[in-house]
């Protein structure tokens, strides 16, 4: 199915029409672009969803009405900081990514 972008594909293995499967960029983890990462303070979180809504990369997942928070998927988070900037309760802090 989805392959890494740098994977070479033989002519005979190419899909007809040079197509791709839907949503297959999931195989490409953009998380390693990140130099800063969002750190969440779940105590202050009011489950407003702005981080989920405004993330350009759609990395936040709704953890549901019981847990009442949104969890970032660090496989894809590029560390842009929009979530931290838009959080009305300042419960997201951008901290240096530890390598």
């Amino acid at each position, binding site marked *: 199915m989805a*392959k890494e972008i740098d994977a070479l594909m033989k002519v005979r293995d190419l899909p007809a029409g040079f197509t791709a499967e*839907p949503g297959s*960029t999931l195989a490409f*983890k953009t998380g390693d672009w990140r130099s800063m990462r969002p750190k969440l303070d779940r105590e202050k979180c009011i489950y407003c969803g702005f981080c989920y*809504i405004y993330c350009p990369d*759609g990395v936040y997942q709704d953890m549901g009405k019981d847990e009442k928070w949104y969890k970032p998927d660090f496989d894809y988070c590029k560390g842009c900081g929009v979530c931290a900037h838009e959080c009305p309760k300042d419960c997201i802090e951008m901290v240096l990514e530890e390598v």
Partner: protein
Amino acid sequence: MTNAAKTPYEKVTAKTFPKGPDALAPGHRACQGCGEVLALRLLLKALGTDMIAVSATGCMEVCTAPFPQSSWRMPWIHVAFENAAAVASGVEAAVDILRRKGRGPDRRIPVVAVAGDGGTADIGIQALSGALERGHKDFIYVCLDNEAYMNTGIQRSSETPFGASTTTSPSGAKSKGQSTWKKDMPAIAAAHGIPYVATANPAFHLDLMSKIRRAAAIEGPAYIHVYASCPTGWRIKPELAVAIGKLAVNTRIFPLYEVLDGRYVLNRRVDKPVPVADYIKQQGRFRHLKDDDIAIIQARVDEEYERIVKLADVFPVEAQEAS
């Protein structure tokens, strides 16, 4: 009320916000803090995957579909730069006739063409004009306006705002950057007599998402002009993607309105506008501008906003209803 205004559609509210997986998958290569991909993600989220998407060449196409991968979860096609409207016309006509001939799904399927400002206002304007004029029933055209040719390296387009320094409208000893005002694409689209035109901004996400749903519900061509911030091209901090969009509306630089069967509806009155300078001073592309230059821009912004207000004031009752 006009037919377009009467067409029922499901608004997106905080309560009904679609929470399923995004129709645009992560793993795309958009820059950190890209306001354009945010707009795209929210627009697609509002419609879901029961649609067909057509992309023009540009940032969104390149960053979402490098072989062998694609972020698009609905059927998607990209052919070239200037022709998204024409490709979408063909797709729309095909879907419609196949439905009529009993060889396709028996329901309306929105065909959404997505292009940048260059692909819309410059190289693609002919194909767009043709498509709007022909009246395709399930045709939605979305212009994601980041105000320059970002994919090729920040060259000016006819949507680049006055005073912005780009790589082909650089500021210098004899230049203040872009010397022309933004081409009024929503007005051009509206002049085709199509049932629905709107401006939208991802910082006002419910409004943006509701508008594409309305566009899909209305029978006939729709045009949505979407504000799309660009940290790379505008030289702003990546975390400002949403904040800068809010400022664009609250300074009256980017008014949010709809044109339903030719009638303007202002979606958001900005009675106490933030000074334009607050918007301009956050962006490296305007760094060279002096207070006098900003005053010129402020005057133009006020004038343009008043023009929209006057157009909307012609039908005040409807405006109340829609807002």
